[in-house]
């Protein structure tokens, strides 16, 4: 009787211990990274932005099964919305807690604009239309400098307001409790908080009536409709939710960088986010987080290791770091897809899907 009740208790104790350990590690991380180099804090912040994007895209692709190759457009919409609402470009300077939600809302509207005409499309056809949508948004941003200058074209928008929250200015280094909190470190904590919120939302959605409806349309749309699911509404909801997360990430990106241009929102970025979702484990929130973290850090690690390794081995540079970096990166992707086709940390559903094709 005692052993029966002790086992789950030990189990939950292990979970709690792990959680506390992870929390301490996440809190201490930026200081450890600063010791290595401030660049690594920035890289981490960018990685968190990609986690946000991947979690957003996972709703559309992983949960609802709608292949979206233009997802970065929502990131762009969120980023430009923030930039236009908080920069000298129009002389508007809304605080971040107003500008980011507005950007997210506009992104959601764009999500519905993309979703509504594509409701009847699936698979390859949907992929092509969404790909076109992503490009259209980027091209519009590139050209909307005439006749009225709205986006400033390819030059992009500069001097975007950094985030100010209460008395904290995220652009400056401030001392607190004897520790120096640089701008990137403060952004790290803000991003961490947003990321935890988005993970929480993702997990809650996955195990809900709405999450099941998404699974149903992914599995069999006709059966889903016949069981009373309004597939049009539930698909639009997926597009809108995914776009909202993209818009939030975009607004934060804008504020952190202080500068944006259409170049940041090219097709390759959409494909990168999709790779994170697929490699990490489509449909599983934790797998997607892992995928985004890995695919964000591995290329950076290679950037910093490829050159010194060559110098020590051969005494000089044989292959450009950029070339070998992409080569190794591509190889890693291929290997993962061969050995773990459902992703590194797949959802149970996806595992079954590949087991019985």
């Amino acid at each position, binding site marked *: 009787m005692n052993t029966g009740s002790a086992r789950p208790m030990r189990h939950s104790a292990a979970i709690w211990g792990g959680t506390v350990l992870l929390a301490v590690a996440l809190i201490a991380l930026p200081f450890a990274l600063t010791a290595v180099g401030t660049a690594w804090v920035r890289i981490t912040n960018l990685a968190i932005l990609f986690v946000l994007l991947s979690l957003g895209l996972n709703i559309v692709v992983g949960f609802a099964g709608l292949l979206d190759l233009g997802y970065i457009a929502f990131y762009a919409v969120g980023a430009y919305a923030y930039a236009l609402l908080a920069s000298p470009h129009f002389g508007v300077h809304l605080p971040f807690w107003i500008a980011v939600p507005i950007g997210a809302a506009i992104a959601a509207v764009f999500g519905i604009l993309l979703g509504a005409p594509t409701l009847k499309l699936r698979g390859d056809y949907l992929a092509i239309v969404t790909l076109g949508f992503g490009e259209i948004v980027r091209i519009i941003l590139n050209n909307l400098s005439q006749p009225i200058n709205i986006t400033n074209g390819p030059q992009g928008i500069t001097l975007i307001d950094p985030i100010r929250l209460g008395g904290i200015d995220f652009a400056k280094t401030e001392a607190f409790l004897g520790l120096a909190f640089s701008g990137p470190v403060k952004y790290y904590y803000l991003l961490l908080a947003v990321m935890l919120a988005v993970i*929480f939302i993702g997990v809650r959605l996955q195990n809900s009536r709405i999450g*099941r*409806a998404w699974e*149903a349309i992914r*599995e069999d749309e006709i059966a889903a409709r016949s069981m*009373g699911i309004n597939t049009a509404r539930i698909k639009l909801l997926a597009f809108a939710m995914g776009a909202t997360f993209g818009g939030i990430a975009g607004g934060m990106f804008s504020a952190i960088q202080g500068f944006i241009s259409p170049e940041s929102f090219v097709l390759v970025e959409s494909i990168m986010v999709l790779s994170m979702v697929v490699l990490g484990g489509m449909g599983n929130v934790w797998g997607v987080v892992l995928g985004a973290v890995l695919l964000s850090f591995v290329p950076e690690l290679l950037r910093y290791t490829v050159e010194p390794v060559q110098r020590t081995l051969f005494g000089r540079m044989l292959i450009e770091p950029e070339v070998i970096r992409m080569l190794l990166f591509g190889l890693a992707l291929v290997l993962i897809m061969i050995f773990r086709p459902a992703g590194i940390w797949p959802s149970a*559903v996806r595992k079954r899907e590949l087991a*019985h094709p």
Partner: protein
Amino acid sequence: MEPVLLECRNVAKKFGGVQALSGVTFAIRRGEIYGLIGPNGAGKTTLFNVLSGIYARAEGRFFLEGRDLTGLAPDEVAACGIARTFQNIRLFANLSALENVMIGRHVRTRAGVIGAIVRGARTRAEEAAIERRAIELLDYVGIRARANDAAGSLAYGDQRRLEIARALATEPRLLALDEPAAGMNAAETAALRRLLERIRADGITILLIEHDMRLVMAVCDRVLVLDYGVPIAEGAPAEVRRDARVIEAYLGGPIAGDVAAAGAVAP
């Protein structure tokens, strides 16, 4: 006599040059098990698809308890109280049996995005009720032990029962079954027959497409026979079985033996 539950008036459906249905008119009374039979290609599945809103462009009208369902989308039809199964099983194959039935509860439950995220007392209660009901229904159709198995991994007969459980989860007034006994052995078919009678006893009217004539003759109160999309006979199974046009429609077809056999063994 019980009042009419479903009324179909002059239903017709064309696929290019093929007139799959024409002039189909019938009424199902509450509490009936109403059979829909006919040779392969007679248009039975097409009638289900028209009725459940899958084929948007069709002629004719439908009324469920006097309410006009003509032209409604499939999800609206389900919300009005018609649930169906599919001849070529359409389960959510990679989801568990339990999840399949839980999805059937969608149309009778409410939690939205905010509810899912906040997960307040009401949402938690609703989720618990959904799961409880889904387990009850798995039990009801006799596959509770398979609750956590992937639907696609179940035995054929169990998949057919799971489809019935999922349809029942939508709380239908009319349950429309498209060849539920297909692929079942004699024991499974006998169990299915008991299940159908129990569903009817629990107050749900059944529209049954079935090729297994023994089953049709045993459970149906009335049957409608379609041939080339046209109704050729309607009535109690015993009458329909003796109808010259029905016998002719089936002659030479693979079912001919079945009709004769069912006639021979029926009391």
